Structures are given as structure tokens and as C-alpha cells.
């Protein structure tokens, strides 16, 4: 049996887990190629107009994979952590794929930690039983996968980005002594090299280093999210808001770059709050980038270069914050 995992949405959060899990169960795993123009076009053609970019990209990956595999693996991530949701689009993802793309061969299961954290793994177990009746084997696979996932998380806390760990061909070692930037946004946008126009690589090429909310343990992010009048009910809102505050407090950041996808619902609200709180507490330079299906890279590069000049080059040249002219 061949199972396809589309390289989109929660791929960068859970790929090591699922890869190990399926391999332990004796299932061959196929992933789609990294996003490129073909994949994006496939997605934009099929997805509903108003959907956000990552959903369109996901549609593209599914269409690319659809005929190469026996089953597509699209779980319904209801909730990652207790009393949080992810996003309505994640909740309806399997149905959107099945009915929009007429792809009936979808392996799916509800994974929810809304009531209890352990329910997530209970869901994984029940799902595993669909593949093999051997309960012991599923348990062992879940355990091995969980260990792999834990090692993956530990690496991320050291400053590695998911794209270094999953896509990276040669070993990249992040150097946190370089000028640091916090890139705040969803893992599936930041790590998608085509959708984000290779933002991380670009900053590294300038000579900077990048930290993202992925590098912050969730428990720390929750603590920082306590600053808000009400705890957000989207787990990535907690990650992004709490993560950016945590990074600003614990690292000598040069600036914060916020990467939004056009039409992202929770982001429209949380970015607003993040920006206001960061401004009030740290007075850090803040750059907001919105990505879309457009492929014009120049606009992004210009803004990024200007931001780099404003934050880093100036201090290298020993300039003060006063304007140079009049």
C-alpha cells in the first residue's frame, strides 16, 4: 500500500511523526515535491476562490499526488492542545478535498486534544487499527513515531527551522550570533520556499539568522499569551503571539517580520494584537508581509532590503537613529 502525504499545511509540523508511523506499519510513504509553479497553478484552479494561499497550495499538492498513490492521508486536525482549535479550514479539510477534487480515496481520522491531550494519541491508535488489526504493532509504531517527533521538536527548540530538517539536503547549523530576526507566521507559510518566496534563505543570504515561533516551546508561548485579555482559542495564534513576545524577551532581535497569507482569518486579528503589543513593550521594528498567489518577487525583495538596511546596516555604519538629512 502506498500512502501519499501532501506537502502542505501541517506537513512541516507532523511529517517526522507520520513518516515513522507509516513506515513502522509497513506502509510506503510518498510525498509530493516541494511547492513550485505547477503545484500552485493546480491548486489555484481547483480551490474555492476565497480560500487562503496555504489551502490552495495544499489543493495543488493533493492534485499532484492523487494518481500516484493508493490513498491520500489527510487527517482532520481538530485540536492540537487542550481547549484550542486550529482553524475552521483544517476542520473541513478532508471534506473539501473529497468533494471539491473528487478524490474519494482519502484516509482520514479526527485527531483532537480538545478535552484531553492524550486523546490525540488515542485518535492515532484508532486510525492505526484501520490499517492493521494488530493493536500491539500500532502501539509500538505510535511510540517510535512519538520519539521521533520529540527529537524533531528538540531540534527546533535549538533554532533549526523545519525546512532545514525536512527539505534540507546538506546539514545547516543555525548561528544565533548573527543579527537575529523573528519571522512570525504559520510554519506552513514560512517553510514553503515557493509560497514565502524563500524568505528564510533570503535573510540568511543577507547575513542574518531567523527565529520563528516554531523555535519556542508551546508551554512558554502559552505563558506569554497570558498577556492578552482572553486566551486565544487558535493554537497557532498562541504560538505566534506568545512566540513573538518570547523571542523578543529572550533574544537580541533586530526586528520582527510578520508573514501573513492573504485572507487568513485568525491572523487578521492576531497580527493586529501582536503588532500593538510589540510596539508597546519593545519598540522593535516591525515589517508586515502579505503573501498571495502573485509571483512578483521584486516587491518583497525591495521591502526586505530596506528593512535590512534600516535595522542592521545602520548599526554597522555606526549611524544613530536620527535622520541623515534635515
Amino acid at each position, binding site marked *: 500500500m502506498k500512502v501519499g502525504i501532501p506537502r502542505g499545511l501541517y506537513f512541516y509540523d507532523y511529517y517526522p511523526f507520520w513518516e515513522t508511523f507509516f513506515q513502522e506499519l509497513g506502509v510506503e510513504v510518498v510525498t509530493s515535491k516541494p511547492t513550485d509553479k505547477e503545484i500552485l497553478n493546480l491548486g489555484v484552479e481547483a*480551490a*474555492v476562490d*476565497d*480560500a487562503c494561499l496555504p489551502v490552495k497550495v495544499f489543493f495543488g499538492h493533493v492534485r499532484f499526488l492523487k494518481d500516484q498513490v493508493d490513498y491520500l492521508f489527510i487527517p*482532520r486536525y*481538530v485540536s492540537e492542545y487542550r*481547549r*484550542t*482549535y*486550529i*482553524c*475552521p*479550514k483544517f*476542520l*473541513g479539510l*478532508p*471534506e*473539501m478535498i473529497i*468533494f*471539491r477534487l473528487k478524490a474519494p480515496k482519502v484516509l482520514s481520522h*479526527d485527531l483532537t486534544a480538545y478535552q484531553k491531550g492524550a486523546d490525540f494519541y488515542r485518535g492515532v491508535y484508532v486510525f492505526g487499527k484501520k490499517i492493521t488489526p494488530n493493536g500491539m504493532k500500532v502501539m509500538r509504531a505510535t511510540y517510535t513515531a512519538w520519539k521521533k517527533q520529540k527529537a524533531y521538536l528538540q531540534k527546533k527548540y535549538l533554532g533549526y527551522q523545519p525546512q532545514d530538517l525536512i527539505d534540507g539536503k546538506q546539514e545547516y547549523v543555525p548561528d544565533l550570533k548573527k543579527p537575529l530576526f523573528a519571522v512570525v507566521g504559520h510554519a506552513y507559510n514560512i517553510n514553503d520556499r515557493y509560497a514565502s518566496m524563500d524568505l528564510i534563505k533570503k535573510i540568511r543570504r543577507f547575513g542574518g539568522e531567523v527565529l520563528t515561533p516554531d523555535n519556542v516551546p508551546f508551554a512558554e508561548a502559552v505563558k506569554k499569551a497570558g498577556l*492578552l*485579555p*482572553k486566551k*486565544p*482559542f*487558535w493554537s497557532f495564534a498562541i504560538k505566534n503571539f506568545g512566540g513573538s513576545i518570547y523571542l523578543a524577551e529572550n533574544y537580541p532581535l533586530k526586528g520582527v517580520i510578520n508573514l*501573513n497569507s*492573504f*485572507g*487568513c*482569518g*485568525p*491572523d*487578521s*486579528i492576531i*497580527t*493586529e*494584537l501582536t503588532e*500593538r503589543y510589540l510596539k508597546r513593550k519593545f519598540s522593535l521594528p516591525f515589517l508586515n508581509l502579505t503573501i498571495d498567489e502573485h509571483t512578483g518577487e521584486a516587491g518583497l525583495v525591495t521591502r526586505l532590503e530596506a528593512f535590512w538596511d534600516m535595522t542592521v546596516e545602520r548599526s554597522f555604519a555606526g549611524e544613530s537613529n536620527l535622520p541623515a538629512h534635515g
Partner: protein
Amino acid sequence: MKVTYPHMGNMAIGVKAMLEELGLEVVLPPPITKKTLTLGTKYGPEFACLPLKLNLGNFIEAYELGADTILMAGGTGPCRFGYYAYVEQEILRDLGINYDLLVLEPPERNIMEFIAKLKKITGNKSIFQVIKAIKKGFLKIKAADEIEKKVVFFRAREITKGATDRVWQEFLQNLNRAREEKEIEEAVNQAVVGLARIPVDLTREVLKIGVVGEIFTLLEPFTNFNIERYLGSLGVEVHRTIYLSEWVNDHLFLGFFKNYSRHKEIVKEAPPFLCHFIGGHGRETVGGVRYLKKQGFDGVIQLLPFTCMPEIVAQAVLPAVSEVAGIPVLSLVVDEHTGEAGFITRLEAFCDLLSFRKKGGNYGKRRIFGG
């Protein structure tokens, strides 16, 4: 304490009655106009959905009238609505508008929690007085919904255009003025009599269209260009899947009045097209299409504000639902745009399509093509 709250259709009437019964001073924002929208879009987050912007506009306008406390409902997600109040407060604070915030988070376990929170607002009023106030507010909303359901029948069949709307407006005024339960009943009776006097053409071929979608765009006529009245004038009977009193009964009273709302029946129709709740009214939208087909409707219109997350999911599966159920569905996205013409053209085209469809193949043979 001068309390204000955002507009949403006829909600203002019920909430005002409830709060005044509790002895609070209510400052209603002026009805939603273009000015409200302009204020909201100017200060609101760029990609936030339309209701948030209109709420924000409401609050700024109410502040000018002297309000100092916001009363809002909360939520536990995943729809953005649950976070509205807090974002709006942050934005207003940066504008130098300081409001106190009273957010009624939905009772997670039982109705007593909700009442206890209300009691914080009410101070030393006894629980019976609180219940009485809630009851009065609810009765008003219920009365408005009851008459509204009748109004659509007459509006589609009236001989003199506008006769029904006159009765409806008069009824809303009476309802707003009513102080006691008796007066509410009187207002209802008066409206029923008034409607019965309207001369109607019962032989007219009337289309039945159901409207599904996001609650705010369904209930607030400003956002949907008063779609119900417009379709009514085209001779279409319009029903919604969401009425405010049903929503209140389901979400605030946790289904206290049994068999009052159709929520369960509607949601039951959603699988296999949507097997999990997705927040907002996504599941109601998907289920609503098949539910309306079973009720004998001719077509369905989905209304959603731009970037509404649950409705986008629903929109993605609706073509499949429409195909299986055999009922045409039109998705209309509303936004800050105020150009009515594009909206109306699509509505008229949709109605034409439905009436051709209703007359069936027989009509097709005799059909004369113009032009």
C-alpha cells in the same frame, strides 16, 4: 453606566427591552449606515471580516452619543467572533476611546453560569427579576421572528407594492415601545390583523428561496442590501435557516425550549458533506441546503462576508451538495463594497433561472428567445 451593543437585525429591540427591565441605561448606536462602515473600515484590521468592522463603527458612533460600556457575546471558537470584543477594545483604546467591556461568554456547562454573569451586570436585582428581564427580551425577539416569517408570504404576493413593509415597520415600532408582555401580544395581534387586510394575489407563481450562511449577514439588512425585501418585490418568498430567537434558544439557553428550533434537523443533513462542526454556521449552511430541498424550496442563496472561514469551507463543498440534492445554489460574498447593481443583477439572473427550471422542460419548447 451607559450600555451599548452592536446592531444585528432586530436584535437591538430584544436586548434593549432586557437591559431596561434590569434598570440599565441603554445607548443604542445609530442604525448602520455608510458612515458606520467607513469608520469601521478605516480603523479595523484590513482582513477582518465585515461584522467586526461594522461593530467597530457602531461603537465609535455610540461613544459620540455618550455610551461607556460595551455589552458583547463571546465564544470559544474557532470562528473569529469569539475574539471580536477584545480586539475592538484594543483598537478603540488606541483611538483614545475608553470603553468598559462586558463580554458574555457562552455558558459551557449550564444556563446558571450565564445567569450568574448577567447578575454581575444587574447588581442587586433578584434572580426572578433577571429571569423576567431575559424572558421579556426573548419574547420580543420571538415575536419579531414570528411576524417576519408571515411577512415574507405577503410581500411576495401583495398587489400594492410596499403595503406589507408598512405593516412590518409599524409592528417594529409597536414592539419597540411595548413595555409588558400583554403589549407585545397586542403588537403581534395588530400586525397579524394588518397583514390579513393586505390585498394579495394568491394565483401568482411564487418562487421559494432559502437563504443560508453566516448569521450577521443573514440578519443585518444593511450588509445584504436588504435581500429579503428585494427578492420579495420580485415575487419571491424568502426564508432563512437562522432566526435570531432560534439561535438564542440554542446557544444562550442551550435548547431550553424543546422543539423550538430546527437546528438539529438542519445539522443532521450535513454529513457526509461535512462530518464535523467547523465553527460559525458552516455546518448549518451545508445541512441547510438539503434541508431546504426537503421543505420544497426552489433554490438556495448562501451569504457570507469576505474571508469568513467557516463559510469558505461550506462554499467549497456546496457545489457537490447542490449536485446531489438537485437544487441550485448561489454563493454571494458581501464586503465593504456598496455597489448594489452587481448584487441585484446576479439575484435577478438567479430568479430567472429558478423560474425557468420550475416551469420545466415543457416551458423550454415554447420558449422564445429575445434579441
